[in-house]
């Protein structure tokens, strides 16, 4: 398996080349193009058993859908994020896992275990209640970002608006809250939801805020 980030910084995508029998997993709906020698099977992980209802658009509310690509013979698949920006890439070695926040999970190798964890509160990261994808194991992990991605080292504590969080190492403690104290007027600081990280570990931060962007564009579109 070969993974390659292609494209200019503003619109990166990831190209995965697979040998016969190899597999790659992505969030469903992220495929740009692929060779016909690959098959694409959709699997789902439900929040709870039961009828999903005729959801026309899957928004992370009730279930998370994965696409599994299997190569019958040598071939490639290209995956892309939703918003303009970088693709984040980490090679996991089994020592630490990552939480992909705010819909940033893009794809991973077959040896990576991906477990959706529902956060329960709506509007934290984007418009809907959000799923963190806990990725553990060995292999490539690919993420979406809105804008440029920077890695911040946390040593003690670090607070960031939820709209800017891409992913963070699972060794970090975190709390999600409405901004308080000197961030008093939460309405000024975007929605005011922040994550306060503590401990030692890495956080991937994106330069632009998905919630702010959605809040500017959304209301100007036709009502749903």
């Amino acid at each position: 398996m070969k993974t390659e980030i292609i494209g200019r910084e503003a619109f990166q995508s990831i190209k995965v080349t697979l040998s016969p029998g190899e597999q790659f997993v992505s969030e469903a709906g992220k495929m740009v193009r692929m060779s016909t020698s690959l098959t694409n099977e959709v699997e789902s992980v439900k929040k709870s058993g039961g009828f999903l209802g005729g959801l026309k658009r899957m928004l992370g509310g009730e279930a998370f859908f994965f696409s599994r690509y299997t190569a019958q013979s040598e071939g490639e698949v290209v995956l892309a994020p939703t918003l303009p920006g970088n693709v984040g890439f980490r090679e996991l070695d089994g020592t630490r896992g990552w939480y992909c926040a705010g819909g940033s999970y893009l794809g991973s190798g077959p040896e990576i275990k991906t477990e959706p964890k529902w956060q329960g509160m709506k509007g934290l990261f984007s418009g809907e209640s959000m799923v963190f994808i806990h990725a553990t194991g060995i292999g490539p992990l690919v993420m979406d970002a809105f804008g440029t991605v920077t890695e911040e080292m946390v040593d003690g504590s670090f607070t960031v608006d939820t709209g800017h969080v891409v992913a963070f190492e699972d060794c970090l403690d975190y709390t999600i809250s409405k901004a308080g104290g000197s961030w008093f007027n939460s309405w000024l600081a975007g929605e005011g939801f922040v994550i306060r990280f503590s401990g030692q570990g890495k956080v991937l931060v994106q330069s632009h805020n998905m919630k702010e962007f959605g809040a500017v564009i959304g209301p100007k579109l036709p009502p749903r």
Partner: protein
Amino acid sequence: MQYEIQCAGSFPVLEISLAPGDTLVSEAGAMAWMDTTVDCKTAARGGVGASLKRGILGGESFFQNSYTSSTGGKVALVPGQPGEIRATEMDGQKLMLERGAYLASGPDVTINANFKGLKGLFAEGMFVLEATGSGPMFWNGYGDIHEVQVEGDYIVDNGYAVAWDASLDYNVQRSSKKVRSFLFGDQLVMRFHGHGRVWTQSRSPRSLSAWVFPFRRVKSKG
């Protein structure tokens, strides 16, 4: 008619220098700035029937703008989305375009719309524009545009295909046979067959539309 694509990168702008006698047609809303010596007329081009077909079915604006200048002048055009602008000199070939990809063209280029899609539950088919004729044709993508040479078969998600040679055959189909895949329209793909070029864009307007859905206001009932 001279043209220049400026600010190459993510947000380029197409600047056209019109000489007396030149005509440029663009989709409505594309004009960013222009000299006051340029006249802009709004008209349904190619007759009402053709425009209706192009406009309503193709997702393009019903009304198209026509720019001329009796003394000469410049007009700057941009698409709504961030991404590349491309210029193609049409010379009798046929180029297929995704509906959001058309920006502007010279007077001898013809744009037609037809619909190719899945019958049944979801009208999530492809609205496709067909460009023929001669002269300059300007088109754009959401994000960067990559060219793929198809020899045989190739699959492209229908949100990402932005243009292709008309010589290629294609079908719109579901990417996976599993029942669950009907839950999202994104799972429609185009299977190309033959020899020709496909241009893909590096982001999908359908994915963006699905993403922005919860930010839209809720229609109040009653």
